[in-house]
């Protein structure tokens, strides 16, 4: 084990093997945390005094919105690492994150809309928080379209890295939009510096669902990164060995 370094799993072959070990645990964790979170959210957390039961949408809305921002930063980070250090696996990881980030951004918008209709009386409003989150969706889709339109993988990675890094400016804009502008969207209920302004059981349900979404995101991104590694290194010996073993 003394040969293990930080870069050990940057080799696509080792990354592929590592994911095969990790993913069953990540899926198990995602399912267990989801069941616990939904139980807390629907059977333990009380009805909200002002919003009624419509507030239960936040148990998926807030985790999806958090993940949509965190995944963008992760995508930009790995794209930058791949670009600067010429690390193949890092660039593949950036590409693998993009669709999952887009899915969570779409879910944040969709669930927010289904919460906004009964609560605000409208499906959509062009306020700073909603608009900047919509721009995030377009950034993800733009990134996916850009990298997939360039045949040369390395050039595609570089172009994607530039787009991802420039677009990263949007993430703090989303996060602080409710502070900087007068938005219909409410401010943060949970912050690092103050006690949360919600019931313990509601908070617990939201945190469990957040952890569940994290586990899900890791597992699905890892699977997609495996697929990308196989696509790119189709002629390598390790791919042939994996294909022979897994296609039986």
């Amino acid at each position: 084990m003394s040969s293990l370094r930080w870069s050990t799993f940057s080799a696509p072959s080792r990354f592929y093997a590592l994911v095969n070990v990790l993913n069953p645990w990540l899926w198990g964790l995602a399912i267990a945390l989801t069941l616990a979170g939904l139980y807390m959210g629907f059977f333990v957390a009380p009805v909200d005094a002002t919003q009624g039961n419509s507030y239960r949408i936040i148990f998926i809305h807030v985790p999806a919105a958090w993940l949509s921002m965190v995944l963008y930063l992760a995508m930009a980070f790995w794209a930058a690492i791949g670009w600067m250090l010429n690390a193949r696996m890092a660039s593949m990881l950036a590409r693998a994150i993009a669709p999952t980030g887009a899915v969570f951004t779409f879910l944040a918008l969709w669930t927010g809309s289904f919460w906004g209709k009964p609560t605000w009386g409208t499906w959509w409003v062009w306020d700073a928080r909603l608009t900047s989150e919509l721009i995030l969706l377009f950034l993800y889709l733009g990134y996916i379209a850009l990298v997939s339109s360039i045949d040369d993988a390395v050039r595609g990675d570089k172009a994607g890295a530039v787009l991802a890094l420039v677009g990263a400016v949007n993430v703090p804009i989303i996060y602080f939009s409710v502070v900087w502008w007068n938005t219909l969207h409410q401010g943060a209920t949970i912050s690092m510096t103050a006690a949360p302004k919600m019931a313990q059981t509601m908070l617990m349900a939201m945190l469990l669902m957040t952890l569940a979404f994290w586990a899900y995101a890791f597992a699905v991104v890892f699977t997609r990164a495996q697929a990308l590694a196989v696509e790119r290194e189709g002629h390598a010996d390790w791919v042939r060995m994996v294909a022979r073993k897994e296609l039986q």
Partner: protein
Amino acid sequence: MTWGSPAEFFSMGGYGLYVWGAYAVCLAAMLIEPWLARRQRLEALVAASRTEKDSL
């Protein structure tokens, strides 16, 4: 327990359409996405094993 009956649970105090509309789409997305990712991996492995046969 928060709910008196299953019907009460599904109606969500009149917000059933909104709550279940949000959760159903979320569930669908989180089932379809892993399925697509696994299919992409399988197709890549199949393609890789084909090129192997071609080169023999």
